[in-house]
């Protein structure tokens, strides 16, 4: 546990100025609000949360595509702001959600997969292509596909291409932002299997973002739960699923619809207040919906979850001793 995490964030913030329509002044939106996370080499960190809670924004910042408003992202302990763009790019690569928009429709698959090599001028043209073909083979794309265009591929095949592109430079960390949400169940399982195999083969570290808790449970080692830009709970995967501490995590788990013909539709104790990211509630942002909210929740923000270790940002858990802490 004393090892330097391969990727970590320190008090990461990201604000957007958003227009609320023509007639109103711009408002500030805290998309990511003081996130502390760390990922150890070789592990998979799952991030879950509802739509709009800041998962993708976080992913963009982890990829260095979006500058942080404050706080920093560190790779091997070094702030990525100090790294050259290209050097960072060699080590951290993305897989995105939408298999349709993640491939340039005007390029052949071979062009798409060799693109990073070309950008970095690694090897000769022939070497680049050879490497790309090897990888395409590895992710299970038929050999004849090299000269095809993305539009001829199914969603699953596209996602394989995206994976090949991400891996062609042999990165250490892969940030997967909902890589299977757009896929059918039967294809999703293929991609998940592939990701798990590749992780073992290449010794990859994953940050795996999803709103599908079953998937995260299946693939992740650690899980962070986000709500309105904050990490509200973080723990090893068993702990989260077996003994969720934060009421939101519990609600989330309850609302997962696993195959259970007799279970019926779960009854959620959540209040109806829909979160408005532009006007988050004071104190604990979850308190308007929280079934167990009590007096300090509406005024005092709970202590954030530390980067290392586990815990929940909740006044309820603060009163009981934290689990095996950092």
């Amino acid at each position: 546990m004393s090892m330097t995490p391969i990727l970590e964030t320190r008090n990461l913030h990201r604000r957007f100025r958003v227009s609320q329509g023509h007639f109103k002044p711009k408002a500030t939106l805290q998309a990511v609000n003081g996130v502390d996370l760390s990922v150890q080499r070789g592990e998979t960190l799952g991030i879950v949360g509802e739509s709009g809670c800041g998962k993708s924004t976080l992913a963009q910042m982890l990829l260095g595509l979006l500058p942080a408003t404050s706080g920093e992202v560190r790779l091997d302990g070094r702030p990525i702001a100090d790294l050259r763009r290209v050097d960072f790019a060699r080590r951290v690569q993305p897989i995105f959600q939408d298999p349709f928009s993640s491939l340039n429709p005007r390029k052949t698959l071979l062009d798409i997969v060799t693109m990073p090599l070309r950008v970095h001028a690694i090897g000769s043209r022939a070497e680049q292509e050879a490497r790309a073909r090897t990888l395409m083979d590895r992710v299970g794309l038929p050999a004849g596909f090299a000269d095809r265009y993305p539009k001829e591929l199914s969603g699953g095949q596209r996602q394989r291409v995206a994976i090949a592109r991400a891996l062609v430079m042999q990165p250490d960390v892969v940030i997967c932002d909902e890589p299977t949400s757009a896929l059918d169940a039967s294809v999703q399982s293929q991609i998940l299997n592939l990701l798990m195999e590749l992780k073992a083969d290449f010794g990859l570290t994953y940050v795996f973002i999803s709103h599908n808790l079953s998937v995260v449970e299946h693939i992740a080692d650690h899980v962070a739960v986000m709500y309105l830009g904050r990490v509200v709970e973080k723990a090893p995967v068993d702990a989260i699923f077996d003994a969720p501490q934060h009421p939101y995590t519990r609600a989330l788990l309850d609302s997962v619809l696993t195959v259970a013909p007799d279970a019926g539709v779960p009854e959620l104790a959540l209040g109806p207040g829909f979160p408005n990211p532009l006007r988050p509630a004071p104190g604990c942002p979850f308190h308007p919906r929280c079934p167990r909210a009590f007096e300090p929740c509406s005024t005092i923000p709970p202590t954030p979850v530390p980067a290392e270790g586990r815990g929940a940002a909740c006044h309820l858990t603060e009163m009981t001793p934290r689990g095996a802490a950092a």
Partner: protein
Amino acid sequence: MTDTTPTASIPTPGASMKSPSRLSLRRIAEQPSLLVGGGIVVLMILIAIFAPLLAPHDPFVQNIAARTVPPVWYDGGSWEHILGTDQLGRDYLSRLIYGARISLFIGFAAVAIAGVIGTTLGLLGGYFGGRVDMVVTFLTTVRLSLPIILVALAIVAIFGGSVTIVVIVLGLLKWDRFAVVVRATAAQISRLDYINSAKAAGASTFYILTREVLPNLAPQLIVIATIEIASAILMEAALSFLGLGVQPPTPSWGLMISEAKNYMFFSFWLIAIPGTALALLVFAINLAGDGLRDLISPDGRG
């Protein structure tokens, strides 16, 4: 979104898939408007290129004694001058053939200039957004608020009419549509994940703009270009018609119409011939443009 999952016929899954080029060739063949329009345009381009070979006479040689000879199908017409002669006794067919050169050259050249300006501005605005976009939008608004014909007329009046000036003026004035469309599309594209992937791979902005964004604009660019070429050709004709475009004796169709208009009540063919040629060319270009648009977005939107 309609799933375009590729085909795998049942008995032998994953078997022969049609090659993309054959597929699009077939789709082109299924676009009658593209075929007809494109055919006419190509024909006109060929005529323009081979004008010296095709024209039966020198388009500039006048014969003041044999003026306004009617076309061959009228009384008094002759096979010597199939479409007759103009008010200075020049062979009308030859002038018409050379006129295609002027119209097409001005159309293409002006739109090339406009395309470069508009695309560059649109790309920058759409891709970078924020301040850059504000500047681009502002420039476009200013441009749009200028009455284009009037400004073109004024500039041509100041600097004199010639093919070069007309090309430059139209090129400098007609970039707005390129900018608007490219900006919107580039803004859309730059939010797509393949751009993020390229960024994440460390690609430079220049690389992204030229290799990832620009190629995807090609279809729109072609469609706008056809519309704009047609409109530039018409605008040149209008300028020449008003006497402020290409100057005589250059055989521009607009100029031919302008010169023939004085004769329209007595020798209607003098104005009808270049008028029809012009309308046909513009019609064909627009038709081809429509076909291209349908080819690119089969649901016929926008």
